[in-house]
């Protein structure tokens, strides 16, 4: 209990969470604070490169484990199963129509890579090591949820002819989206070049990492604050509550998967975080293509304005404490 509390306080008072809070407060106060779009995009790519490369270098140092396969399979199963749970809860508790419920369910089955980044940083700060290959698990968890949610929408008979499915082009766009290519590509380069490569890139990807993450989270705070402001108009209390308890349900499923695979406490914390997080980049774009009847005014503010801030402030220390307790 004491560990959980000290982790929570340390997380809440960390520069990255405080910068996120600053951005959110600025947006709620209607300040014009904004990071230029190109800068934000550049920072996102930098963070993907850094986290992917470090994960690959860590795997090179510890060797290829059979657990990697187990962790990726567990991630795939989680991503496919969570939309089923989310959809059932949404339909029974929120009154959302089938298309909106399916779209929201896709977001909660998929993952937020920024939440993952923040969890990795929280583990690093707390001195808790983790499996480098969790980067690959994160990449694997992005897509299955989308396919399952589209199946749920078709099954609900609430979609127009031609809707509720992705063609080959759509699938390729999701599988090869820039973040995933950068993350997995950097992971592979880190794995190939190992400790020597990490030493070479260390001044670029290790020392400045925290500062860039703070600036990036300031921007995310601004965006989340705007999302929350918009969400107040379009989200019912039941839907907002779903955005707060679904991460805990997903996290619990993630913990079970981590125990079955036999991950370390650090790896368990990351698996819980991945399962608890909700997408707000890849899935919304996929939903606009494949399920345009679903309202973005519901799923975007819910994921970005409710669940993301919850995970960043309360969720991550809770997941790290739970993983430490399990381990």
């Amino acid at each position, binding site marked *: 209990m004491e560990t959980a509390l000290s982790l929570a306080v340390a997380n809440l008072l960390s520069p990255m969470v405080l910068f996120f809070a600053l951005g959110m407060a600025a947006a709620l106060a209607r300040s014009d604070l904004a990071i230029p779009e190109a800068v934000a995009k550049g920072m996102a790519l930098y963070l993907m490169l850094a986290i992917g490369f470090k994960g690959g270098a860590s795997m090179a140092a510890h060797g290829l484990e059979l657990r990697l396969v187990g962790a990726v399979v567990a991630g795939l199963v989680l991503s496919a199963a969570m939309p089923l749970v989310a959809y059932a809860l949404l339909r029974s508790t929120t009154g959302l129509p089938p298309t909106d419920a399916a779209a929201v369910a896709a977001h909660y089955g998929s993952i937020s890579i920024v939440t993952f980044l923040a969890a990795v940083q929280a583990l690093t700060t707390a001195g808790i090591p983790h499996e480098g290959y969790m980067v690959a698990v994160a990449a694997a968890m992005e897509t299955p949820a989308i396919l399952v949610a589209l199946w749920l929408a078709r099954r609900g008979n609430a979609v127009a002819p031609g809707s509720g499915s992705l063609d080959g082009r759509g699938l390729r766009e999701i599988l090869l989206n820039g973040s995933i290519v950068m993350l997995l590509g950097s992971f592979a380069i880190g794995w190939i070049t190992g400790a020597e490569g990490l030493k070479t890139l260390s001044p670029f990807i290790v020392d400045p990492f925290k500062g860039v993450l703070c600036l990036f989270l300031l921007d995310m705070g601004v*965006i989340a604050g*705007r999302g929350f402001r918009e969400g107040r108009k379009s989200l019912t209390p039941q839907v907002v509550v779903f955005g707060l308890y679904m991460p805990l349900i997903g996290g619990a499923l993630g913990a079970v998967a981590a125990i079955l695979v036999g991950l370390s406490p650090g790896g368990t914390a990351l698996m819980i975080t991945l399962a608890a997080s909700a997408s707000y980049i890849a899935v919304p774009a996929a939903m*606009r293509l494949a399920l345009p009847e679903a309202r973005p005014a519901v799923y975007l503010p819910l994921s970005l304005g409710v669940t993301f801030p919850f995970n960043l402030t309360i969720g991550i220390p809770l997941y790290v404490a739970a993983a430490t307790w399990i381990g």
Partner: protein
Amino acid sequence: MLMHPKKRIEIVVEAPVVGRLLSVLDDLAVTGYTVLPALAGRGREGSWRREGLVGEAGRMVVVFCIIDAQRVDVVLEPVFKLVSRQIGIVTVSDVSVIRPEHF
């Protein structure tokens, strides 16, 4: 100056769909089009601002092309088939051009 009447098709469409829309225009051998990012707007789904969005979803772009009046139906049908389920607007207006052979 001698001017020639043409039709201008303007499509305001969601950013995730724009790649497909341009493919349709390419397949229809539309001789030229222009794509512009939209900064902010308001519609039936509420208001939005480009700077308040983290990904492509929710962003809008404007695509316009100028074609001969005889080709309007040929171009509009597949374009409308693609964008009819999405958030957006399709308009057709009369314009005058100086170099008709370009369209």
